[in-house]
């Protein structure tokens, strides 16, 4: 019983303590001349879907849910965003060479097709990132039409 109390207190101390670990907000440059949606001008619905399902981790601007400022959630998210942007940054899409843009488009389409993206953990929290079959078809159809 005594150990249980100590463990509980220790957990609380750790949980409170880690709130001071800073995690920078993802608020970088979002310039229209480099932004994927601005450059490729997808149909409105597809653009909205890309914004809700991809941009949180694959751009320089994340719309954070309220609980995301608490640790350890903030660290977890921060890590995902960093990884996501390394592979694909839609805010800086214009900086990729034409060859890489084509590669990225192809990878986007196959990741969605394989169901690998959006991540399951992301979809569990962001229900609006759950693309319906029709939405998925629209996004994929458009992406493929852009892969020349």
């Amino acid at each position, binding site marked *: 019983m005594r150990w249980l109390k100590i463990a509980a207190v220790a957990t609380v101390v750790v949980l409170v303590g880690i709130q001071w670990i800073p995690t920078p907000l993802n608020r970088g440059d979002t310039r229209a001349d480099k932004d994927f949606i601005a450059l490729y001008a997808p149909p409105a619905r597809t653009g909205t879907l890309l914004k809700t399902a991809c941009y949180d981790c694959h751009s320089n601007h994340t719309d954070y849910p309220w609980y995301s400022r608490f640790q350890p959630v903030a660290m977890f998210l921060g890590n995902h965003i960093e990884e996501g942007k390394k592979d694909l940054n839609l805010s800086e899409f214009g900086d990729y*060479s034409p*060859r890489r843009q084509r*590669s990225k488009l192809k990878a986007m389409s*196959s990741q969605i097709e394989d169901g690998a993206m959006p991540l399951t953990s992301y979809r569990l929290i962001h229900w609006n990132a759950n693309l319906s079959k029709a939405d998925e078809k629209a996004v994929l159809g458009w992406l493929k039409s852009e892969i*020349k």
Partner: protein
Amino acid sequence: MKRILLTLAVAGVLSSCGNNDTSKQAADQTETAHNATEHEEHGDHDGHGDHVASSVSGNTSVNGPVRKSDQASAILDGYLAMKDALASDNSAKAAASGEMMVKAFASFDRASLDPKQQASYDDTVDDAREHAEHIGTNSGKIDHQREHFDVLSKDMTDLIAVVGSDRTLYQDYCPMYNNKKGANWLSTSKEIKNPYMGSKMSTCGSMKTEIVPQ
């Protein structure tokens, strides 16, 4: 730019998949023909395979010969090891070859190229390096590795057009991969060992082009 010595094996395409099943051969033949027209319509400008497809209808594109050069030999070693690993369904070995390629890119003597070659080299390698890296970090996900190998193979074909090759290469074609969109790969042997389908359909595919460095 480069003249590829083609032994365009239409016959090879016909006899590609399922050597003992004639009805399937016929189907594959239509499929391949369909792919060829499709590529032409889209006017693709990156895949050299597409030029070959065009040459079926007489539009042979004029390319300069691939230079004889061992500059890219370490890169090719890595790529070919990756191709063999994927053909034998060995995801971990494919990943290791990806890392090999990344190292080979890093030690490539870029300064020996003229400025124009450097520009094409940079454009191709920026992309190729990323695919190699990604294949390297995705051990265990062989389907995903193959998706990237598809694009990497295109990059490699473009790369040797710029930096040359130290060995004769064969550009092979698998008409079935990626929902029958088809995909190319490079190999050093005439024997088909399909890296996209793996052991499941190892001999599916055909040799399209023989690249003899001069």
